[in-house]
């Protein structure tokens, strides 16, 4: 139990775009700022001598926000980038996501129902898009987040075309 045991299945080959780190960091900064503002509002509007719970929040709140900030800005983006991988093989779409709990998802191209490309506002700033591969199963959805937009579009087109060619019943 000392050396990290090997992964249960192999990892997909390709990493995400490096801009994903920037995007996740930005998201971390935004959420931290929101928490700081909420906490500041609490300090300003709630009188400090209103009982034990308030004192508790006054002490715990800043600690939690600092921990969250350190994790969300300093640790999580890099860890996520190290974990996240994706690959499209001849037969299947294969992804690995998560940062603490890891999830490998494998869907054969013949069972793909629809392929969506979505781009949020923040993603747009970093030139990234998400490819969503849907199947008949609610749990069999493959998300390939934060690919470069032109890569995402190419992958989506290619998958949709190949799915059309090899589709069987798809359920």
């Amino acid at each position: 139990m000392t050396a990290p045991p090997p992964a249960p299945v192999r990892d997909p080959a390709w990493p995400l775009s490096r801009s994903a780190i920037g995007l996740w960091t930005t998201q971390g900064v935004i959420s931290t700022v929101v928490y700081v503002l909420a906490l500041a509002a609490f300090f300003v509007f709630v009188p400090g001598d209103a009982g034990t719970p308030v004192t508790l929040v006054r002490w715990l709140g800043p600690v939690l926000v600092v921990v969250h900030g350190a994790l969300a800005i300093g640790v999580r983006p890099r860890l996520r980038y190290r974990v996240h991988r994706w690959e499209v093989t001849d037969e299947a779409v294969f992804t690995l996501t998560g940062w603490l709990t890891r999830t490998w998802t494998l869907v054969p191209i013949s069972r793909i129902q629809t392929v969506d490309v979505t781009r949020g506002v923040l993603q747009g700033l970093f030139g990234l898009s998400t490819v969503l591969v849907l199947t008949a199963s609610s749990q069999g959805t493959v998300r390939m987040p934060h690919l470069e937009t032109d890569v995402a579009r190419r992958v989506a087109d290619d998958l949709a075309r190949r799915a059309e060619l090899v589709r069987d019943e798809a359920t």
Partner: protein
Amino acid sequence: MIDPAPQPGERTSPRVLLVHTITFRQARALAPVVLGIGAARGLGDGPAALVALVVGITVLSLLAAAVSWWRFSYAVGDRAVVVTRGLLTRSVRTVPLDRVRGVEVEAPLLHRVFGLVRVRIDAAAGSSVTGTEELLVDGVPRAEGDRLRAVLLTRRARPAAGEPEPEHDAAQDDPTEPVEEEIARFDNRWLLYAPLVGGYLAVPLAAVGALTRLADELPERFVPDVEGPDVVDGPVVAIAVVAAVLVLVLGSVIGAAVVNWRFRLVRRGGSLIAVRGLVTRRHTELEIDRIRGYTVSEGLGMRLVGAARASALVTGLGDAARRGQLFPLGPRAQAWSLGERIVEAPGPLRAHPPAARRRAVVRSVVPGSVVLLAGAVLTATLGWWGVLVAGIVLTVLGVPLGLGLYAALGHAAGPHSLAVRSGWLLRSHTVLQRRAVIGWQVRQSPFQRRAGLATVVACVGAGSGGYAAVDLAADEAAGFVTTASGRWAGTLHPSS
């Protein structure tokens, strides 16, 4: 896909007006308004006001029912079924016949009085992920309902061959109907299992709940002034407990009887047909070609007496938990032999590694030990020892719970199918056809990684969408997936 010129639609039977008037189906929405107005203006005291109110609501209800009957029509074309309705905004829904996934004919009590049935048509919607939609044709004569079902289900597959006559109640079996094979029939002795099944136990509880609510709302003067027993002594408590147990047992048996009365599962051509119900008679048809597997579930109480329940996993079936039922309640062996006819089992289950047992025990002991810890702190600071005792009890109970959870775990993969089992309170054992799996997911939390375990989920376009083999040995995960799914899953192998 749409018929060029939809034929003039057919109406439902006018008798449905009576049914809907009696049940206030359409007027139900108006009732609060009327009551509100009544309350605001103050009802006269006399019975005349009450009568006026009742007559008014009935007339309103009749009107509403008449309007929706008048504006509703349905037509079954060669390629699509069209339902038109709506007073001001007309809505026309066209469902291509090849999208029809199932047809259910049900006959609630009032409908039966008037010789009517309700037909539910399940359709797969476009390409959305979970989408199924439903067309409801409410209130056609029984024969017409059966004709609709037959037409909808046969026209899709083969040219309309005669009309299978699904009349089970009377002995008027048509000699030309396709061969029917009875697969299961409910034995009334199985009702005795009902008190051990959670779902049926809930029936009397719900009834008691409704009664107390009713009693609360009764005006004070109607409540009989019963002198409650002042002394809480042994015999009274004992009698109350015995009475409560009796009510529970009887209620659950009655509940099970009402739902499953004369349950019958038959196979006719390419379909499985389930008929059941005492008050509302349901007639559900499942296409065998769309069945992807089955689940046999055994609750804690059911395991004690060897009872089980089986349901089919069908693609594109809405409300699958109820409609997919193949075997509502009965002996274990029967449930299994039924399942075996649908999907060949992949062989005996393999147990999960000892690390999975450790993890199961640890996970079920943790909540108890948190309480224990809190209890220790409280005992030390405030002298409350109650929490400490509760914590000790919970922690100790966690051990058998964890062992039970571990004992339920298992998985197997064969050439045609795969199986997973889990759950302690409700143990469910799912067997899936090989073609059912449309994707795999492997999950590993940091704790699982340390223990060398992983959870493997088979994604399926039927039932709950995914079936998990929890806490497999991590190095067995890839092997399990490839045995179950063949070549395309080989991508996952660590060596490749």
